[in-house]
């Protein structure tokens, strides 16, 4: 943990301001990535994913929160705070902190990369170390496929299909959080979004999630579901 923090600080130090002088404008962006209601195999479902960003083109601070509630009970909730620095045209470096709520509360140090891979895949890969000393990793990938624009003429709103995959892996068992060594879960989803403007974009989404490895085994023992699918509708918005 301490090593990580030191490494992060060292990186921060080397990240001498490249652009951030005078001429680079500071601006902000608020993005509601997911805000949806619907049903899953477990019952009704609500989820959110919101992020806020402030900074120059080179140096930014990110705040992100995401979570999910099923049958009115919050199942998962987390908050991440990152310093984000431009590494190259398409890649950013992130370092920061994550806090999980519920079950047990956990703090993690985080370090990772985010960016746009060839063929416009948005990729986020982050490594964490929790306060219990358990290392974990998360990979998220998604892309926006523009299906049609012709619905209301060439310059009209766009209909996008957004496939997404997310998976988590960890180094050891965290019984309190009910996550065990190895791959813990995977989620696949497809979102069909109708973007009137970037500010107003309603969507429908279907997804499938499954616990993996020992996590799945342990949870099955406890009588919990290990896989579930869902269908939701929601709104995405960019400010």
């Amino acid at each position, binding site marked *: 943990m301490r090593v990580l923090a030191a490494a992060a600080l060292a990186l921060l130090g080397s990240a001498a301001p*490249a*652009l951030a*002088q*005078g*001429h*680079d*404008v500071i*601006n*902000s*962006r608020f*993005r509601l990535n997911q805000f949806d209601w619907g049903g899953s195999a477990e019952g009704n479902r609500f989820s959110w994913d919101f992020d806020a960003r402030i900074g120059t*083109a080179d140096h930014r601070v990110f705040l992100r929160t995401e979570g999910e509630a099923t049958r009115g009970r919050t199942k998962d909730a987390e908050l991440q705070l990152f310093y984000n620095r*431009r590494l*190259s*045209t*398409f890649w950013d470096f992130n370092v920061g902190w994550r806090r999980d709520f519920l079950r047990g509360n956990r703090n993690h140090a985080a370090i990772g990369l985010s960016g*746009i891979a*060839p*063929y*416009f895949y948005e990729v986020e890969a982050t490594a964490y170390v929790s306060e219990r000393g358990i290392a974990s990793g998360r990979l998220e990938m998604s892309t926006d*496929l*523009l*299906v*049609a*624009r*012709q619905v209301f003429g*060439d*310059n*009209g709103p*766009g*209909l996008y299909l957004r496939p997404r995959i997310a998976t988590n892996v960890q180094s050891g068992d965290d019984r309190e959080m009910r996550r065990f060594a190895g791959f813990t879960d995977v989620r696949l989803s497809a979102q069909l979004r109708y973007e009137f403007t*970037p500010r107003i974009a309603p969507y429908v989404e279907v997804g499938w999630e499954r616990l993996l490895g020992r996590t799945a085994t342990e949870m099955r023992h406890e009588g919990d579901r290990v896989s579930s699918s869902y269908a939701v509708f929601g709104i995405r918005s*960019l*400010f």
Partner: protein
Amino acid sequence: MSLSRRDSLRLAGGMAAAGTIVAYPGRRSFAAADEQIDLAVERTRITVDGVTSDAISIGGSVPAPTLRWREGQEVVIRVVNRLNEPTSIHWHGLLLAGVMDGAPGFNGYVAIPPGGTYTYRFRLRQSGTYWYHSHSAGQEQAGMYGAIVIEPARPEALTAARDYVVFLSDHSRESPTAIFRNLRAREGYYNRGQRTFIDFLRDSRRDGLGATIRDRLDWGEMRMDPTDLADVTGYQFLVNGQGTADNWTGLFTPGERVRLRIINGSAMSIFDVALPDLRMLVVGADGMPVLPMPVDEFRIGIGETYDVIVTPPEARAYTIMAEPVDRSGYARATLAPRAGMSGPIPPLRPRTVLTMSDMGMAHGGGGHAGHSMPMGASGSADPHAGHAMPMGAAVSIDPHAGHSMAAMPGMADGRTMGWTSAGTPPGKRALRYADLRSTVSRPSAPAPSREILVRLTGQMNRYIWTIDGRPFGMEDPVRAREGERIRLRFMNETMMAHPMHLHGMFMELENGAGNRLPYKHVILVPPGSEASALLTANEVGEWPFHCHLLFHMEAGMMTRFIVEPTRVGGAG
């Protein structure tokens, strides 16, 4: 037209270049001036096609009043700032002492503070069509622009019975700050022309599935979008401050020669301009006279001006059409024998899709005269700086590959392919840079002693725009000695066209016109292409050199062009 310097201006320029802040002795009596004018800068509301929005005016109107002067006159302009922020006025294309150029932070010129007054004073050393605008962030696009018309000291060979300014601009109801924020918020925020799955099906039918997939993969691999022609949409396009419904009208009597002084004073819009039923005779470019060239249409970059003469033969209305390259709308005006008439409005032309050859990477022998550039020619740390062409290859502007009749083969299924394809109707002729020939023949112009590479670079996904990979504020200035003859070689490593504007001096565009290279103050460098210009650094100072797409300039695409005096404070 005289390009020589005036001694009185030399001292100020020299001092400014030497880093001294020159307080212009502006308290001189006006009596000595030939022309004097007071212009107030203030917030206002303008109504375009019945919709009212915020604007900033100079001299009480948008566009600002046309300043009609005469070559050789000394003019005095007193600018009063009634805004609550600093402002400035830059005289676009005029040859003058640096401190009079009006770009804050350059040549010792300081922005005019709120409530302050600045007195500009300079002698007109040229004639032609120019313009003036704010050089302070966000103000120009809010309406601070107007035309300058300087009559030549000697009468012109070709006279016209009517003389109209056709000032093209784009007006957004969004504030410039909001637009910039959106551009940084998401790549392609305003792009409404991206290719869809339906386009994919259509292209597959036309080009075959394999070729279509290959094309999509090529763009995907580069993480670039071939439909990215204009960063901002949502504009109303104006002619002389009037919308398409307002329909600005210029009157004529049939058979008369009408001179149109077409100025692109927009923030972000490159236009294709045509009068569908009239041939235009191009007689001036960027204010400087060129050998008359008959064409049906031309593409005009931001900051460029073209003077054309038309001779409407019949007593009917003729439409002036200006379509932005992304075809997100149009500006129109009318020439008519009497007010209240309007001519037919042709359907918008197809919007082009960039091709791999616009990126300097023609597949399957496009036959391009590609000069391959040595990779990483100018030591950028980031091989991906310049979000286009990671390999740094560029295609030179082929004088024969203009968007003329040759554009037709590039048209397919109502979409045109490639930056140069303007959708020019069959049999019509579009102006190319190669057609511009100065009226001044300079057979003995010296060869350049040095070449300066100007790489146009950027990262679209982050909306960072730079020159040589460096944003303004961290720029590596271009330096030349007074009197030095140099070549500027522009290498556009991005997938957008950049209208590159140099203050204070004319560039001589190397367009193949031999001893008649046209003088330009803006050179529109197409995506993935090269262009070059010669220049005699005869104006001492520290001049802005930037992309005239205002949000590109804002995002950092600007540098300093420093002309060092041979002798500081030299003989006056």
